[in-house]
């Protein structure tokens, strides 16, 4: 696994363009390969990076799967990721000094693929380190912040994507905040509706039998179609009750976006809640009831803590899905990173698309890691602390 990933990363750097250099933002550029950096002024760091990757690959041939090895692979891979970013940034800076101000240095396939493969290497090594789930999330978060810090410090400022960012800096932060707002606004009602629905479905089988087909059908409706379906009734509602309209409720914008995301999110949350509650063992319920525990104490003290890992797995699916779907809501005027994404798509500005997609992906990864940590803690609690089985209880 480690050898394959490292070798593929090396191949990606050798065979795919590291950056593309274009005379302006709309023309597609000339590919520049990583190996072409070697004769230039960046030769030393480039060779150093290749050496790091090579050592990383060869380390896999070493004996055993010790924690020390996994830790050094993770560290080396993170360092290599930072190195890639720095090299690309430097290359762009050098070019900017000589070429016209309109010239663009866009990140190439080799860069992205190598970055992705290194990311997988880090994830794989962290898995093998068997860190406590909370720690694994913390390390991932620290790595993201580290790479983000490199960008924030201006090391990539001459890259095309950062120029696009500079052009949109005024709206970027707002778009990101709006994106988060849409996701959180959708998550809250999803939990308020989904958790009780899952609980009720467990008590009444008929409810589940009616509910799940409906939720399944909703999942199959394409998101754009669902927005369309919601537009008309919401517009009518807002027209019928002007107070709703004044509160910002209309056929376009935030309201249909949030409602659609809630509808999509309900299935995983309700399903997770039901499954989680179902897997609480019958003997535990029987004992709790026989000892005189009331329905609510039993729910809060016994059923919910024991069901929590599976319930949270459902919420995790819903949250990650919402981060992605929220991009599409830009089409009905809800804003968010999707607005930048579609602007890029419609003006064929690849780097603008990447500028929007990248934070969406990172946001998804961060949300996923956050819930993975939460689920890990919850499964440890459910199994009794320090349980050897807690690890297998959390979906990796």
């Amino acid at each position, binding site marked *: 696994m480690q050898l394959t990933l490292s070798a593929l990363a090396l191949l990606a750097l050798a065979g795919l363009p590291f950056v593309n250099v274009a005379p302006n933002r709309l023309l597609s550029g000339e590919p520049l390969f990583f190996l072409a950096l070697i004769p230039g002024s960046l030769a030393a760091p480039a060779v150093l990076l290749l050496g790091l990757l090579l050592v990383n690959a060869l380390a896999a041939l070493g004996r055993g799967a010790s924690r020390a090895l996994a830790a050094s692979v993770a560290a080396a891979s993170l360092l290599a990721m930072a190195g890639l970013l720095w090299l690309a940034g430097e290359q762009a800076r050098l070019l900017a000094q000589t070429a016209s101000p309109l010239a663009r240095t866009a990140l190439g396939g080799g860069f992205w693929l190598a970055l992705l493969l290194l990311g997988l290497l880090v994830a794989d090594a962290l898995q093998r380190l068997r860190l406590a789930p909370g720690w694994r999330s913390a390390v991932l978060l620290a790595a993201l912040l580290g790479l983000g810090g490199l960008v924030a410090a201006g090391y990539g400022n001459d890259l095309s994507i950062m120029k696009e960012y500079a052009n949109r800096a005024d709206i970027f932060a707002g778009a990101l905040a709006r994106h988060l707002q849409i996701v959180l606004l959708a998550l809250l009602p999803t939990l308020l509706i989904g958790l009780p629905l899952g609980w009720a479905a467990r008590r009444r089988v008929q409810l589940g039998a009616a509910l799940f087909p409906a939720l399944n059908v909703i999942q199959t409706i394409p998101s754009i179609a669902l927005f369309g379906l919601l537009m008309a009734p919401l517009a009518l509602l807002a027209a019928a009750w002007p107070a709703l309209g004044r509160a910002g409720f209309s056929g376009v914008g935030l309201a249909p976006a949030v409602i659609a995301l809630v509808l999509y999110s309900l299935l995983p949350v309700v399903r997770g809640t039901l499954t989680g509650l179902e897997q609480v*063992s019958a003997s*535990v319920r029987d*004992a709790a*009831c*026989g000892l005189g525990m009331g329905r609510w104490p039993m729910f809060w003290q*016994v059923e919910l803590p024991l069901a929590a890992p599976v319930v949270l797995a459902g919420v995790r699916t819903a949250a990650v899905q919402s981060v992605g779907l929220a991009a599409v809501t830009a089409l009905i005027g809800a804003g968010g990173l999707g607005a930048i994404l579609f602007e890029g798509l419609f003006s064929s500005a690849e780097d603008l698309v990447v500028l929007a997609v990248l934070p969406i992906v990172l946001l998804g990864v961060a949300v996923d890691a956050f819930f993975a940590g939460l689920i890990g803690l919850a499964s440890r609690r459910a199994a009794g602390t320090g349980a050897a089985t807690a690890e297998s209880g959390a979906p990796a």
Partner: protein
Amino acid sequence: MIEFQQVARAFGSAKAIDGIDLKIEAGEFVVLIGASGSGKSTLLKMINRMESHDSGRILFDGQEITRFDPRALRLRLGYAIQSVGLFPHWNVARNIGIVPQMLGWARPRIEARVQALLELFGLDPAIYRERFPHQLSGGQQQRVGVARALAGDPDVLLMDEPFGALDPVIRASLQQEIARVHRSSGKTIVMVTHDIDEALRLATRIVLLDHGRIVQVATPLQLLAEPADARVEDFVGRSEVGIRLLSLKPAASLARQEPPQSGAGPGLPASASLRDAVSHLAARQRASVNLTDASGGHAGVLHAADIFSPGAAAVADPAAAAASATWGAGG
């Protein structure tokens, strides 16, 4: 303490419980026994209202149980089940302390109670208080399960095949412990089992059920000596009645006060049953065995001849055995 009056319960046209009349006095150890589907578990769960009854009355402490709030009733009735059902996310101390906590006891009192119960069941509190259920063996889990059932100092302890899932060695030691708890606490215990040997060993009275009806209510000795009908004979095992009778009486009861025999091989604890003694003698092809008391001292000699000869008439003659008052109480 508990009284069933013409209690019945039907599932559709099938009668799961059919006209049960039974009075359980305080301090009794009543074992409900029967084949699967005999209604023994349903009958037990009717006492703490985990199961309802269609007709008849069930009295607890002189009051009809339907007049109690189910939860208040259950807090006064300890409950232990075969699958134990410990709360996996709580440590042993919290598992045991749940009923006292629901009863609103002060924290120090709960701690002391947990401590005492762990000691009662031979689990060192220093080691086991903080353990989680998955860190315990099956036998330890069931000990904690029974301790939890006793934690609120209930008037009655209800147990639904509590030792059914344990291996024979662990089961025997837990049976001894529950017998000890019964003797020392004087609590009323109602237990369900399908294991006739367990019933004979523990019960002061056995209630044999078949298709929701009582076939016979009797002391262990009466059940063996005077089976009510063929169903009882089948249940206790026709060919093994003699052996089971032997199991009800300690080896010491037939010992001769003689000096120890030399070269008699390993001795037998005086508290072992006559059944164990017969097994011991048969395995070693001997006619007598030295008995030892709890401190390892000599406690007489048991002769095979006394078990099988007219001198041991109480065993050979069921009628005479029934007349012997010491047996039923021996449990």
